[in-house]
């Protein structure tokens, strides 16, 4: 009876949750569809469909467990990964960020140039009797006044106008000024409007009361897909890699360009361009060294402490509480504090040891500093793991060995360590993978430096692949998202194969599959 009741409650609860989530999804599908975000609405539609099938039928039991997790993984992890892979096939860097139509619009708008004197007029925005947009322009210095519509310019006689102390006119016969709120409602229209002035020049509105004399110097011909500068006669043609280039001089391009598909060019660049390849190889080697040393030092110190405290020891609880502090403290804070401590002139480390080491200026010391800080951050984790694992190793094993006359060193080497390694090796692999991409420590501690910039180096001596790639994608100066994406895809393949190899060897997956 009780279970029957429980069943009813849980089933009802399930329907409530499913209904709620379904309606939420439906709502989102409708509004994303309305905003033309079709990719998102299709994804959400699939999610809704999958949810209905999974939870309202018994189509697949495992799916009942996987679906919510899969939803988040696909939306926020797999989706962005695919997007990054796609980016790597594009010429996508500073200067080539937007789509081609956007770039054309943009070039056209920078091609609208003010006249040489940068003439501006004080204007009033208004409309005529039949509600057509027009402006009333005043030139107080030359005492010239006119009304300009989208098609014609009507000069006004100053004698007929009421001119205020600034030399401006606020109204003219037949002209109805727009109120500020009417203007703001028409904002988009006003921004695009070109009011007649002369055959070459027209007036644009630059904010509510300012009109500026402009001419279109670059014109676009859709049929031939070319830009032409009307002043110089130069033509610019699509060069196939996302820019309009001067027909006569290919190096001269119009800014901005657009993201153009260049397929594998970013990848081939990695291997053919020595400017990119050389630092990349050096950074890769240091990344492997950094990740390996980090894991080894963290594990070694963690194991040492675990061994030291693997018996009843006065004050063990206090020691343990202190030792796990680095693990429990916000890591941004710890890294930045360490950064301050390594300062040459004022840092605590040089002060403590009475040395004058230039920690962050010398490649060797900077690397050492990175390893020390990472050791501090990570060894408590391995201490916790190892002390747990040591407790799980049956005491009889070592006791038996001791009776057989083995020394404690032998026991450790022959019995404890192999058993321990068997247990922690998947975690060592996981830690290696984590540190391979440990962006925070490099970014916050050394910023990748020092780099022998004068010697021609682009990458810093402590830069690991991910921090180096981040610099390429988001650094100062030129940002190259396409190239950065290509590098991340390559990093991904490297680390994935290392890890898969490690996992295969440790047979983690086999035992359950």
């Amino acid at each position, binding site marked *: 009876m009780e279970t029957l009741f429980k069943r009813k409650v849980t089933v009802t609860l399930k329907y409530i949750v499913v209904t709620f989530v379904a309606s939420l999804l439906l709502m989102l599908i409708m509004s994303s569809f309305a*905003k033309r*975000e079709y990719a998102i609405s299709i994804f959400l539609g699939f999610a809704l469909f999958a949810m209905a099938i999974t939870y309202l039928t018994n189509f*697949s039991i*495992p799916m*009942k*467990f*996987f679906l*919510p*997790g*899969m939803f988040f*993984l696909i939306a*926020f*992890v797999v*989706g962005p*990964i695919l997007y*990054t892979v796609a980016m790597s096939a594009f010429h996508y860097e500073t200067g080539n960020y937007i789509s081609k139509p956007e770039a054309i619009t943009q070039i056209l708008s920078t091609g609208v140039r003010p006249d040489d004197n940068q003439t501006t007029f004080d204007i009033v925005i208004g409309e005529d009797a039949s509600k057509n947009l027009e402006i009333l322009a005043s030139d107080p210095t030359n005492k010239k006044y006119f009304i300009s519509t989208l098609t014609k310019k009507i000069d006004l006689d100053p004698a007929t106008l009421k001119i205020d102390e600034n030399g401006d006119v606020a109204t003219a016969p037949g002209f109805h000024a727009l109120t500020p709120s009417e203007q703001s409602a028409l904002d988009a229209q006003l921004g695009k409007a070109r009011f007649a002035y002369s055959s070459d020049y027209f007036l644009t509105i630059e904010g509510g009361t300012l009109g500026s004399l402009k001419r279109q110097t670059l014109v676009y011909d859709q049929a031939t897909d070319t830009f032409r500068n009307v002043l110089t006669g130069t033509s610019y043609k699509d060069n196939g890699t996302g820019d309009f280039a001067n027909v006569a001089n290919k190096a001269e391009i119009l800014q901005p360009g657009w993201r153009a598909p260049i397929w594998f060019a970013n990848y081939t660049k990695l291997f053919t361009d020595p400017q990119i390849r050389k630092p990349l190889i050096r950074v890769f080697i240091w990344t492997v060294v950094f990740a390996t040393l980090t894991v080894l030092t963290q594990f070694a110190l963690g194991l*040492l402490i675990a061994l*030291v*405290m693997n*018996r009843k*020891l*006065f004050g063990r609880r206090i020691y*343990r*509480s*202190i030792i*796990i*502090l680095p*693990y*429990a*403290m*916000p890591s*941004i*804070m710890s890294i930045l*504090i360490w950064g301050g*401590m390594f300062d040459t002139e004022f840092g*605590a480390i040089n002060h403590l040891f009475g040395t004058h080491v230039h920690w962050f200026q010398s490649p060797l010391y900077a690397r050492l500093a990175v390893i020390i800080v990472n050791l501090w951050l990570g060894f408590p984790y391995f201490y916790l*793991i190892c*002390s*747990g*694992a040591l407790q799980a190793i049956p005491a009889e094993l070592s006791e038996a060995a001791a009776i057989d006359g083995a020394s404690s060193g032998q026991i450790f080497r022959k019995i404890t360590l192999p058993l321990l390694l068997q*247990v*922690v090796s*998947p*975690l060592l692999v996981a830690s290696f*993978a984590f540190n391979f*991409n440990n962006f925070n420590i490099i970014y916050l501690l050394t910023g990748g430096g020092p780099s022998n910039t004068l010697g021609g180096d682009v990458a810093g001596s402590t830069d690991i692949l991910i921090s180096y790639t*981040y610099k390429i994608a988001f650094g100062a100066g030129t940002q190259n998202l396409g190239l*950065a*994406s290509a590098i*991340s895809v390559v990093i*991904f393949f490297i*680390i*994935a194969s290392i*890890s*898969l190899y490690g*996992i295969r060897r440790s047979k*983690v*997956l086999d035992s*359950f*599959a």
Partner: protein
Amino acid sequence: MKRWLKEDLWRHAIAIVVCFFVLFPIYLVILSALSPTGSLQVTSFIPKTISFHNFSQLFTSPKIPYLVWMKNSLVIAGVVAILSVVIGAASAFAFSRLRFKGKKQGLQLLLLVQMFPAILSLSAVYVIMSRVYSFAPRIGLGTQPGLLLVYMGGAMGVNIWLLKGFVDSIPMELDEAAKVDGASAVQTYWLIFVPLAAPVLAVVSLLSFIGTFNEFILARLFLVDMHARTIAVGLQGFISGQYASNWGPFAAGSIIASIPLIAIFLSLQRYIISGLTAGSVKG
């Protein structure tokens, strides 16, 4: 006495050296938080003057809504910790206990996905969330719920992987007994597995709580509004400003922010150790 010297003295010596290593930076944080100039510059390891100005600034300065940041962090990290474990546990259970086609491939895929350098997909996440903003402004870019969704996605892989390890360590016999009683997989999950795994779920929640609490790269892009920021973004703002580094309030703020984490850690010490190793021993 002699035995104590021989057996334990070196152990104490090592432990003390390591404790010194651990405490040294922490001592310096406290030192600079208490110094009136609030710098990391060391002139002496013993403070000459002690001032609580840096601490009081956090709570009195109208420019620093410290308590609001703290609340935001606790709420966001708390929700992510709970929800991601609730969702992740279900997947972990299925990976560990259910038989289905493609399980091994699924696991490998899960592992691989985690290895993609996430920082590089930052711009992709930004684009996706700004699109979401266009039709659902309350859960898109620049909102806490939006950030929460992204964190959930990020936490999923790690959590499933960790939890699977833990689930594997729970004896099979229990759910086999339930199966004999005629319980379905779903019932086994809710009635047998969840209560049994509760401590382990708590540990993984705690780990993802800390991870979320520390994150600032995404958070500083998402949480622009002063009162929406998390503590990590707020603290980083003190010292990464283009114009000034305020080490004093940073140090003071960091100390206070660490207190809840350390308190949880120390009080759950035993759980954490057993929880962490439960996953690994069987792994």
